[in-house]
């Protein structure tokens, strides 16, 4: 699905990470973790071909990244819709299906009518899949963050992608919604065999579903199963500073002493760390 070899990326003239080797197989659930500004979103954008690599190579679905394919779903970092936006959730999902095609649907012709019916059926399927049927006909601006997020996941799924990139889909959701959306994504991955690459701030809501984690810190990357990577030894080596990983009684992992990466945009903040 996704293969990165000796990859490196930069932002604002500073190398974010380098020497990254990564493979994501079909139906795998991979989390991209790390402190703020480490380059998690950049990793996703490089894989999609939206940003260039400074070294190495990246292949997506057997082709160089950037030859944009419909078999790739993408949910960018949290967008919230203008509260007054008068477009139904169902229409936003539909845009994921044919929003890139010129013109407007033309249901007056016979072929147009059939295509229209197929499109509506498919949109209905994914809206059901994410459990959004009850509110898909309301204006998307009037929906809650969790409801919008489910519809956006439906939008990313509507073209039946083989691999799905999700950038912090749990961000700014409350805890019950985080758990619900996480299990939804895990279920899609298991049941539909879609590979999922998900950027996350906190590993715990998805810990039970993960096949592998990619941890970015200090310009380097560690990859492996969650219990290999999120350990005191691995993270201490990655950050070059003592890190302690504590497992709580309910199985949650807590990383103690994790330093935040320096501000990527630099300049204004000088050498100050966030």
């Amino acid at each position, binding site marked *: 699905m996704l293969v990165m070899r000796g990859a490196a990326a930069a932002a604002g003239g500073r190398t974010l990470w380098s020497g990254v080797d990564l493979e994501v197989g079909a139906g795998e659930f991979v989390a991209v973790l790390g402190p703020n500004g480490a380059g998690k979103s950049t990793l996703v954008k490089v894989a999609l071909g939206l940003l260039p690599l400074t070294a190495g190579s990246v292949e997506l679905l057997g082709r160089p990244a950037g030859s944009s394919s419909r078999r790739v779903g993408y949910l960018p970092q949290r967008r919230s819709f203008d509260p007054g936006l*008068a477009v139904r959730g169902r229409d936003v999902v539909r845009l994921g299906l044919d929003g890139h095609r010129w013109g407007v649907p033309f249901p007056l012709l016979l072929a147009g009518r059939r295509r229209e019916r197929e499109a509506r059926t498919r949109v209905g399927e994914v809206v059901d899949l994410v459990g959004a049927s009850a509110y898909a006909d309301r204006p998307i601006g009037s929906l809650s963050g969790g409801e919008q997020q489910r519809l956006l996941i439906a939008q990313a799924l509507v073209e039946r992608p083989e691999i799905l990139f999700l950038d912090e889909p749990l961000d700014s959701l409350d805890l019950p919604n985080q758990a619900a959306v996480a299990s939804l994504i895990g279920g899609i991955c298991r049941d539909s065999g879609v590979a999922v690459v998900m950027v996350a701030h906190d590993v715990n809501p998805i810990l039970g579903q993960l096949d592998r984690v990619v941890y970015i810190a200090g310009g380097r990357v560690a990859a492996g199963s969650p219990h290999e990577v999120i350990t005191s030894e691995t993270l201490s080596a990655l950050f070059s500073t003592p890190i302690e990983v504590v497992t709580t009684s309910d199985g949650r992992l807590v990383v103690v002493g994790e330093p935040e990466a320096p501000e990527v945009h630099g300049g204004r903040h000088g050498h100050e760390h966030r």
Partner: protein
Amino acid sequence: MSALAHLVAATAPARHAVLGPGAHLPHGAPPPVLGANLVSDLHELFAYHFMVTALAAGTVVAVLAAAVGWVMVLRRQSFAGHTLAVVGFPGAAGATLVGLPIAVGYFGACVAAALVIAAVPRGRAGSSRGAESAVTGAVQAFALAAGVLFVNLYNGFLNGVDALLFGSFLGITDSQVWALTAVAVGALALLVLLGRPLLFASVDPDVARARGVPVRALSLAFVVLLGVAVAAASEITGSLLVFALLVMPAAAAQQVTARPGLGLVLSVALGLLVTWSGLAVAYFSIYPSGFYLTSFGFAVYLVAAGVRGVSEARSRRVAALGRGA
């Protein structure tokens, strides 16, 4: 006083350029009165050629403005629309001054301003909004000032300012109607062609970009389309009241429905309703058409907002009942 009358008489052949309210009355004829007999009133409306051309031009403009306006309201670009309209005023006044048709002035100024707006790179959302709106405000004030100067330099008609700013449906020629129709058909064809990608780029630019939709190019194309629609609407409503046709029907439609297709159709229907009723009532009235067009547009918007309020209250009550059961 006699000097002024002489001046008006000397420039009478150019009356079609800028006319004020009531000027369509033939000398000595009694003013038309809106009677109880609607059929004969309608008959009278269509008896005058200038009224038929006004209704034809109004129809074309209403359809174009309502469709483009629907996208403008969706994209939250009303401020850009207003700027284009205000820049149209010196364009039209300047065109009159140098002896060009007013329409050339409106279209030239609005499309040129649209190209300037499109060429200025927009900063990231939020970061440079303040500076951007300050610049636009300054440009708007200067445009109005320049327009007033041009009208005064022309010094033919004192009520010319009225017509340019607040609209006049009089003196629209057949060739103007044909030109408006050609422009509107072209603009609407482009809008249909851009269709879904424009909606995608307006609603969800990040994903649209990732899916290969040319978001920036679409935004440029739309601002130019907006310039064309504003110029066309200005010919009927004047520079300051273009929102009667550009914003009010579209905003009313978006109050009532969140379906894109239905919203567009509703916006056009409301635009036609406002235009036809506004022009018809203005014919029987001594007050300017811009007042009626805008008031009817505002009434439509208020009704739509009321409908939305009622239906939201009802759905809240239904939801509350559902939870209670």
